[in-house]
């Protein structure tokens, strides 16, 4: 019969990262690496190509030089190469003594020693030896790479033209990736919205599985199945409440009819008083059960003034029988609000019953209706001239089964808890205050339209 009070918001644990950011970062990283590899591989390759070409040229030059060497009978070396060659050379004997060299050798050799420095001429050197009949000779060939070759052109094109193109493509790919992830996850937000609408009163809601990624459908289906089982449980509880109503009310009706037909009128009056308390308790407990189980339709447009007058008309005989006067003020014109008529009627009835129970005989109970004003919702309030609420009780009287220290007579302490609950469902408030004359003034404040 009870349902959890609105539980304190569960402290959100540190989320294990959103799926969007996880997918975004990882896919983004993958994109960047893939683009870098795709972009740099030809560059690196062409770098290699270039040194290979150099090495091959050097070897070819070396072979050319080796063929061109001839040894004069006097032991001198003659090199039969044309004047226009693109490399420099030097020929030495095994002891290192220079036997012959080309014109540009000295300058180039110095350069070759510090080859590799950027911005300078690319100079490569190859050393080898040939065996002549007179003994081995050491050959050194230096190659001067003077201008941009075809390979250099390709390499530069990568750096200058293709990479600047690749970067925007990379950026666009990242954006599309993130957009795609977001779009794909959007149905999850709808599922979350649907799930947040599920309460003990709204058990008919099911999570939508249309447009959902196929991977999530089993999860949503499983949750929906679980909700089906929960709804079944709630249905049982509702049925229990209805059954309990029948089971409790019928014996009470028998008891009530029995008491009324007893001959001893003094005993009848006293027993009826006890029975009234019992009836009220059963009523209130069933109201709690119903409130937990039945969805309230707080969107209906209702007229608070008409509701107050109608209920006052119905309750006037009870008030007069208990020797309290009942009046309604502020109900001359309609006061339109959105709310569940039956629930608001119960809330007001509980307040009037409280007022009857806590005010002295021959006093007046006043129901006051006020229309909504700027920023303030419409209200219904009930004033009595009883002792009022003890200040210490005000915050606690809306708890179930709490009874104020000035409470006497029958009462289970459920009335105001029910009212507070009804107002909370409406997005309104229950205000416990004091009437100007000293009694209690309890106000139902509805949210502004």
């Amino acid at each position, binding site marked *: 019969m009870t349902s959890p009070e609105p539980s304190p918001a569960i402290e959100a644990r540190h989320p294990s990262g959103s799926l969007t950011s996880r997918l975004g970062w990882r896919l983004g990283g993958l994109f960047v690496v893939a683009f870098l590899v795709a972009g740099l591989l030809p560059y690196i390759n062409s770098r290699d190509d270039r040194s290979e070409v150099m090495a091959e040229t050097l070897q070819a030059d070396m072979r050319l030089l080796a063929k061109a060497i001839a040894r004069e009978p006097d032991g001198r070396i003659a090199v039969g190469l044309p004047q226009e060659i693109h490399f420099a050379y030097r020929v030495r004997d095994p002891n290192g003594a220079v036997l012959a060299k080309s014109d540009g050798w000295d300058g180039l050799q110095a350069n070759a020693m510090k080859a590799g420095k950027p911005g300078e001429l690319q100079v490569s050197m190859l050393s080898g030896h040939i065996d002549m009949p007179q003994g081995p000779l050491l050959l050194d060939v230096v190659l001067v790479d003077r201008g941009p070759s075809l390979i250099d052109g390709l390499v530069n094109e990568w750096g200058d033209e293709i990479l600047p193109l690749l970067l925007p493509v990379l950026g666009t790919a990242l954006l599309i990736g993130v957009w795609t992830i977001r779009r794909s996850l959007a149905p999850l937000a709808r599922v979350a919205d649907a799930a947040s609408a599920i309460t003990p009163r709204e058990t008919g809601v099911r999570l939508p599985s249309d447009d959902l990624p196929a991977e999530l459908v089993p999860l949503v289906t499983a949750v929906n199945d679980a909700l089906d089982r929960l709804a079944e449980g709630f249905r049982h509880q509702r049925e229990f409440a209805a059954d309990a109503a029948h089971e*409790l009310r019928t014996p*009470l009706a028998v*008891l009530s009819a029995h008491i*009324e*037909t007893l001959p001893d009128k003094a005993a009848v009056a006293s027993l009826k008083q006890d029975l009234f308390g019992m009836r009220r308790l059963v009523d209130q407990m069933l109201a709690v059960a119903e409130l937990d189980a039945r969805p309230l339709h707080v969107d209906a447009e209702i007229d608070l003034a008409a509701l107050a007058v109608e209920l006052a*008309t119905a309750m*006037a005989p009870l008030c*007069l029988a208990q020797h309290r*006067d009942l009046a309604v*003020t502020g109900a001359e014109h309609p006061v339109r609000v959105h709310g569940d008529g039956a629930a608001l009627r119960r809330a007001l009835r509980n307040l009037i019953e409280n007022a009857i129970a806590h005010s002295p005989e021959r006093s007046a109970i006043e129901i006051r209706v006020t229309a909504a004003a700027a920023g303030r919702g419409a209200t219904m309030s009930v004033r009595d001239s009883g002792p009022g609420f003890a200040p210490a009780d005000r915050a606690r009287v809306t708890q179930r089964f709490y009874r104020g220290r000035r409470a006497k007579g029958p009462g289970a302490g459920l009335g105001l808890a029910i009212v507070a609950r009804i107002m909370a469902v409406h997005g309104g408030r229950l205000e416990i205050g004091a009437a100007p004359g000293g009694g209690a003034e309890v106000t139902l404040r509805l949210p502004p339209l």
Partner: protein
Amino acid sequence: MRLLLVEDNDRLAHFLVKGLGAEGFAVDHVGLVDEAEAALATMRFDAILLDLGLPDGDGMDLLRRLRAKGDTTPILVTTARGDLGDRLKGLDGGADDYLIKPFEIAELAARLRALLRRPGAVMSREIELGNLRFDAESRTATVEGRALALGRRETELLEALIRRGGRAIAKSALENTIYGLAGEVEPNALEVLVSRLRRRLAEAGATAQIHTLRGIGYLMADGAP
């Protein structure tokens, strides 16, 4: 006035027959839908007091069958299901009134009397409230046998109030009854009329009193202890 009580709880039925008998009703009790139909086929009742959950069927079905046959006998439904209340009086229900168990026999008797006064139902000729008696046919009021001298509008007001004896009636409804819908009503004409009737009742020694319910209307009840 003859009532048919359809109630399967024998103990409740027993006390209701006794209690309503003390209120002046002749009550025939049946416990099943079949028995109810048999009773209705052989006798005419002024009103039916119908419990909904019966061992051999639903009281609602009996209600619908009766209404489908054109039977307009006033029907007061008693139920332990509070949530049924509004539906019972709806278009599909066909009940004239309902009471949620548990109820007081006095309340039940008052509701039954109200039903019997409705148009289409048998008008009770005499209405009593305390020591005040109103004859609806001759439209005369007496207190302990002594006739009250009332003007036309005072008589109309008394009739409207006593027909809803013990229940509140809206001020606007009273104005419509007494002055008609079209007529211009002075703002405090009704108040003046009510205080005049009050004085006449007090002078005659009537125990019934007219209560003013500010913002609501008026209620006439027996003030005797």
